[in-house]
């Protein structure tokens, strides 16, 4: 492990930007705010590139000890950072995509009144996210983990005067709390049994333990609890419900936090804890099953959504499911690979969707779009590339990573053809709903109203619409298209790092430190089979495209007829399988009712308040009767004294005569 004195600068730089903009941004010009936000975020990216340039496997991993934190006997937690191949990938993705989205935000949020606030929050998010990925122990990671949750809450509820946005922010925060609860207990278990939270020390202790095949043991418990945390942060069943609602936030936020970086933190955490999971096969199986089911489940919901951002949100949940599927079958590097490519193409999809929303004056309903290809050629081109990437069409980025996951799901010792089959089915659905989105948005004729609406929808900007004087869709400015172009380039070439398993070999030191990852055996399965499965996944992607083309371009009346024919099933999908309603009945309402009747009216008002109030009432009533003795009449007092004396004398006489 090589000490690196510069590592701590990477997270601190965005924090400085957030502090400057947060404290002094209110009165500053937008130009100054943009400069500060971009310079500090860009500096972090530059630092990351600098670190990457000097990174070599020989000297890795780097570590940086910043300060002592908790020193209690043999238990120590320090503020220290750590950079190995895994964190380097995350570092580059977070700073790179983050910097692009910062640039995009300058254009996208320029006309918003809270511009300084937005940029400050974005920088704050970068700080916490970098703390998360660079942490050297679980507790520092937890700081970042909670911090990104805070930033997410602030940014989802950024338009806090809108009730739905404020509610969505709260929902995200509270659902994440459930996951954090699991994460925290996992940390407590580590402290109790390993006496440390430092990655290297915990994993060293874990490696002395045997593999738990029965599914009942310490490592399985830790693994499952970590997965609870990951399911909260990364929106997996059953805690995925917050992510679609999080689309209430501004679109750059959806791209940065709820697609590219923060929601992948759970995947990163599971991959980082690979040493624990490898010795807990039952926990791995749960991860794989949860991931697989989430991938399919969310994808089916995505089919019937009409809000462009909601489609992408469910798509994100679905793709995160793929990553967990990969981690669950032991293919951690494939999961991280997909995490990286997903950050490119899903970030791009969201930014392009933002550009579309911007172009049509704040409309998010795809039924009111259409025909935008001629108005917004650049947005169309970049979004098309991202769609090809996510659908898994070669040679775009998503193809490489998704194919890697599907192959590992089939061939890995922990894998099974069931995972593969569901994965392929999901790939088909993914391809279908993404091309559906493209055809509905860019194909056909424009279905929106051309006169400029005075009231703008969700991501309202107004500025451009007013400048044009009419509501005709228009292409976005260069500051928005620039990041789109860069991400489109990455979505095209980003997958080639997986060529010849280069990416897997790069990450191998992290995941094979335990010496137990049996990926080598998987590759003996024969390349013929691998190419066959690859062919299947490419053809289902093509089929999905064809189906979407047929339904939404050739026969646009057909989808409505199919929906009518399906009736209840279609309604269930449109209403997201009524999961929110189910949770409301199962958890939210009993909690509210129980809190109201038992805790509030029963215990708080009935016991706690009543004790205080009744004590006071009793004291008042007793005093009320006693105060009549205090008449203020001197002779009545003397009478009481004389009477008292008489009683005492009578008592003594009586005692004396007994």
């Amino acid at each position, binding site marked *: 492990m090589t000490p690196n004195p510069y590592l701590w600068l990477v997270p601190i730089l965005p924090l400085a930007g957030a502090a400057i903009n947060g404290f002094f941004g209110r009165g500053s010009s937008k130009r100054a705010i943009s400069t500060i936000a971009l310079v500090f975020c860009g500096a972090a990216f530059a630092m990351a590139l600098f670190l990457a340039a000097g990174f070599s496997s020989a000297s890795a991993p780097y570590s940086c000890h910043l300060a002592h934190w908790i020193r209690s006997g043999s238990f120590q937690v320090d503020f220290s950072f750590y950079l190995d191949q895994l964190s380097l990938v995350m570092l580059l993705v977070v700073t790179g995509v983050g910097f692009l989205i910062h640039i995009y935000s300058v254009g996208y949020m320029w006309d918003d009144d809270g511009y300084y606030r937005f940029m400050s929050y974005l920088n704050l998010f970068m700080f916490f996210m970098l703390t998360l990925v660079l942490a050297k122990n679980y507790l520092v990671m937890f700081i970042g983990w909670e911090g990104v949750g805070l930033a997410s809450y602030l940014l989802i509820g950024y338009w806090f005067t809108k009730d739905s946005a404020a509610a969505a922010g709260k929902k995200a925060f509270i659902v994440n709390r459930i996951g954090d609860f699991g994460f925290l207990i996992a940390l407590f278990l580590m402290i109790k049994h390993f006496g440390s939270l430092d990655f290297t020390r915990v994993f060293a202790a874990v490696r002395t333990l045997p593999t738990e095949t029965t599914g009942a043991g310490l490592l399985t418990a830790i693994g499952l609890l970590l997965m609870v945390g990951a399911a909260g942060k990364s929106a997996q069943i059953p805690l995925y419900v917050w992510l679609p609602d999080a689309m209430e936030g501004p679109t750059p936020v959806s791209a940065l936090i709820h697609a590219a970086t923060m929601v992948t933190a759970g995947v990163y955490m599971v991959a980082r804890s690979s040493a624990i999971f490898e010795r807990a096969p039952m926990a791995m199986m749960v991860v794989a099953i949860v991931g697989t089911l989430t991938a399919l489940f969310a994808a089916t919901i995505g089919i019937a959504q009409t809000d462009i951002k909601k489609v992408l949100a469910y798509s994100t949940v679905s793709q995160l499911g793929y990553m967990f599927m990969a981690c669950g079958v032991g293919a951690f590097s494939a999961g991280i690979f997909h995490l990286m490519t997903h950050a490119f193409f899903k970030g791009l999809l969201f930014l392009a969707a933002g550009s579309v929303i911007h172009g049509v004056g704040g409309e998010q309903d795809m039924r009111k779009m259409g025909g935008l290809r001629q108005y917004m050629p650049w947005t169309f081109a970049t979004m098309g590339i991202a769609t090809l990437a996510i659908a898994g069409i070669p040679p775009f980025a998503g193809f490489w990573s998704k194919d890697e996951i599907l192959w590992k799901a089939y061939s890995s010792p922990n894998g099974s053809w069931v995972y593969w089959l569901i994965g392929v089915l999901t790939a088909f659905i993914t391809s279908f709903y993404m091309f559906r989105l493209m055809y509905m948005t860019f194909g056909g004729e424009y279905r929106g109203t051309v006169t400029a609406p005075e009231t703008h929808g969700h991501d309202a900007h107004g500025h451009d619409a007013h400048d044009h004087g009419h509501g005709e869709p228009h292409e976005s400015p260069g500051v928005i298209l620039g990041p789109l172009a860069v991400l489109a380039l990455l979505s095209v070439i980003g997958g080639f790092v997986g060529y010849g398993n280069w990416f897997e070999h790069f990450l191998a030191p992290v995941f094979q430190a335990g010496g137990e990852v049996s990926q080598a055996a998987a590759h003996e399965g024969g390349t013929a089979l691998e190419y066959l499965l690859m062919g299947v996944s490419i053809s289902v992607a093509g089929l999905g495209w064809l189906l979407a083309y047929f339904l939404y371009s050739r026969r646009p009346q057909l989808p409505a007829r199919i929906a009518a024919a399906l009736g209840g099933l279609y309604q269930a999908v449109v209403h997201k399988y009524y999961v929110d309603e189910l949770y409301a009945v199962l958890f939210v309402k009993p909690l509210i009712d129980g809190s109201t009747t038992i805790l509030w009216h029963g215990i708080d008002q009935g016991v706690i308040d009543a004790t205080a109030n009744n004590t006071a009432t009793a004291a008042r009533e007793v005093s009320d009767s006693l105060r009549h003795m205090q008449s*203020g*009449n*001197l*002779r009545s007092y*003397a*009478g009481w004294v*004389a009477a008292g004396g008489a009683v005492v004398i009578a008592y003594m006489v009586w005692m004396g005569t007994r």
Partner: protein
Amino acid sequence: MVPLSYYLVLSGILFVCGVLGFLIKRNIITIFMSIELMLNGVNLSFVAFAAQWHALSGQVFVFFVMVVAAAEAAVGLAIIIAVYRTRETLNVDRVNLLKL
């Protein structure tokens, strides 16, 4: 020789007179005099017992009581004069400024 019980009965009568006077009268000076009457009732029982038991301490105690009573009379009369100057009355029922 007069028996002890005579003194004690007289002492009791004096004390009860004092108590009744204190309770019934409204004039501060009369009340004050009633207090002196109670003190002297007690003094009488002290000296009676002292003579009976040939113990000097009772006599001494009476001197103390008389000294304190004299001091009390001096201070008490001064207070009464002060009260009369401000309130222009000696009726205790009307001296009630401290009452709520």
